């Protein structure tokens, strides 16, 4: 009854209410919170923009009159095709290839080790492990992810190379292993990306609906069949995205590879020699005495910009894969 009355058109509408906004503390607080949150959100965007601006003005085109940017002095062709990187010598060469080579050899070794192990661990945690064990393992993985990378670097230098690589490859197989070498860096990098791969892949695996697993079992699958032939393909997009993010992290990793692989730009695929990655060059150059305005200083930005473009590309690819191949489960 009362409800019917309330909506009845016969009730005379109230009149004379003010529609204009009036000041109130509640509304002021609302506006304040909104402004602070917006500020925080914009900060990261602004930082990114500032970094890109810096890259562009130092590496591509200088806006300050009388100064030049890196690519106004070194041609893009030299940068991409020269096979030597020697900014600190009298005969300067600015070929990015040796640094790219170091980066990809080391990231490649890391991926070959980290991706399969991370995925296997994720499959174990999601499909095989008892819930109790899973709850225990998650924080352990996070601890692994929280170890500073400089620790991994020293681990590679003082343990992996002398106690693992040298006994196997040098003593047994007779291959010379430098004290700084790409292999040890790749190995620890592999360990470093395991938590990323494992955690993201596990999320993807666990998002696969229970019904698909049951359907698999009902067709006479073993646990192995269900895990590898039903669940993993169903979580494909998430797994690939976790791989791409991990590789992108491996490419951008700095301290560990700088310590473990050394600072010797070398265009070679021999993983037992010292190599220099793009990140390691940037650490070295910025720690050393590199006055602003010199070509050496500008090369930092050129290398940084290249690295930025590569990781940006990887992240875009990861997002694209996520969206393109996502299986929608309601």
């Amino acid at each position, binding site marked *: 009854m009362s409800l019917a009355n309330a909506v009845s058109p016969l009730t005379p509408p109230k009149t004379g209410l003010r529609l204009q906004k009036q000041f109130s503390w509640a509304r002021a607080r609302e506006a304040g919170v909104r402004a602070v949150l917006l500020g925080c959100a914009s900060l990261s965007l602004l930082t990114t923009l500032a970094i890109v601006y810096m890259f562009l003005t130092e590496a591509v085109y200088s806006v300050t009159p009388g100064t030049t940017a890196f690519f106004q002095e070194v041609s893009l062709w030299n940068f991409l095709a020269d096979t030597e990187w020697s900014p600190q010598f009298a005969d300067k060469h600015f070929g990015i290839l040796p640094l790219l080579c170091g980066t990809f050899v080391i990231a490649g070794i890391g991926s070959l080790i980290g991706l399969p192990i991370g995925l296997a661990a994720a499959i174990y945690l999601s499909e095989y492990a008892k819930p109790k064990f899973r709850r225990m393992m998650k924080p352990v993985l996070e601890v692994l992810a929280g170890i500073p990378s400089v620790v991994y670097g020293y681990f590679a230098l003082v343990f992996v190379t002398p106690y693992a690589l040298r006994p196997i490859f040098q003593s047994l197989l007779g291959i010379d292993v430098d004290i700084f070498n790409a292999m040890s860096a790749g190995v620890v990098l592999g360990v470093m990306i395991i938590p990323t791969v494992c955690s993201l892949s596990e999320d993807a695996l666990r998002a696969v*609906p229970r*019904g*698909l*697993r*049951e*359907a*698999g*079992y*009902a*067709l*006479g*699958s*073993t646990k192995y*069949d269900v895990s590898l*032939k*039903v669940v993993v*393909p*169903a979580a*494909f997009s998430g797994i690939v995205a976790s791989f791409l993010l991990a590789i992108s992290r491996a490419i951008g990793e700095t301290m560990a590879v700088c310590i473990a692989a050394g600072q010797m730009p070398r265009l070679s695929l021999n993983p037992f020699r010292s190599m220099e990655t793009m990140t390691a060059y940037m650490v070295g150059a910025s720690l050393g005495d590199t006055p602003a305005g010199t070509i050496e200083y500008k090369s930092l930005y050129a290398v940084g910009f290249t690295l930025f473009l590569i990781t940006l590309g990887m992240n875009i690819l990861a997002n694209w894969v996520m969206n393109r191949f996502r*299986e*929608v489960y309601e």
Partner: protein
Amino acid sequence: MTIMQSFTELVHQRQQRESAKRNRPVESEVTKLDVRNLNFFYGEKQALFDVSMTVAERAVTAFIGPSGCGKSTFLRALNRMNDIIEGAHHNGTVLLEGQEIYAPDVDVVSLRKRVGMVFQKSTPFPKSIFDNVAYGPKIAGQRNHKGLSEIVEQSLKRAALWDEVKDRLQDSALALSGGQQQRLCIARALATNPDVLLMDEPASALDPASTSRVEDLIFELKQNYTIVIVTHNMQQAARISDWTAFFYQGYLIEKDHTQKLFTTPKKKQTEDYITGRFG
């Protein structure tokens, strides 16, 4: 009693349709599954109480009963799908052609190949139509592509889906309509060549046209398969089943020829349920 009459009519229609289709007795009397004194527990909670029932070969047996009465639990006990639920346990015996399926030396994987299952929600794998149907034979070790193609074609034909998908076997199964997906799941279950097919409300998420296709299909399939189907739709039970079992609160109240159960139920609870007085 108009409801009773309408059921009688449905059953009658069905029998006519059946005898018109092929000249054979309406129900077979060979026992395929024999369940004795089955008690089933989810942890502490008992879901089935002392259920004993036989399931006839090459016939359709329908389970009806209000929500939560244990129909799915009982159905899933028949191919040990409950094994994968943490904390589930049981006592009693389930015999498939005289063999205890819960015996320690029984291989669950081969049991489930013989006792296939179709679920309420269609569960196509995110693979191609072909790969969905070929999944079972593949994991069973069938590698030969020609052999697989034959199985796929045959299964899709039996599931009355072949004509709709024969030109796009490599398309994703997720692109099919709901009704097609459910028939695909039936085809997938048939591809492992089971002799028993368990169906848990296979048509409850489908529109009337798709439902009637699935019902026709069940009708066809019972020539070769033993079919157990859970349904909430009593008209459906009356239309397609030879036997109907009524469950209530974990107990099997009665099981009889469908016609008898719907027209002259022995128990008061059954009558109340099928006339819509509760549930």
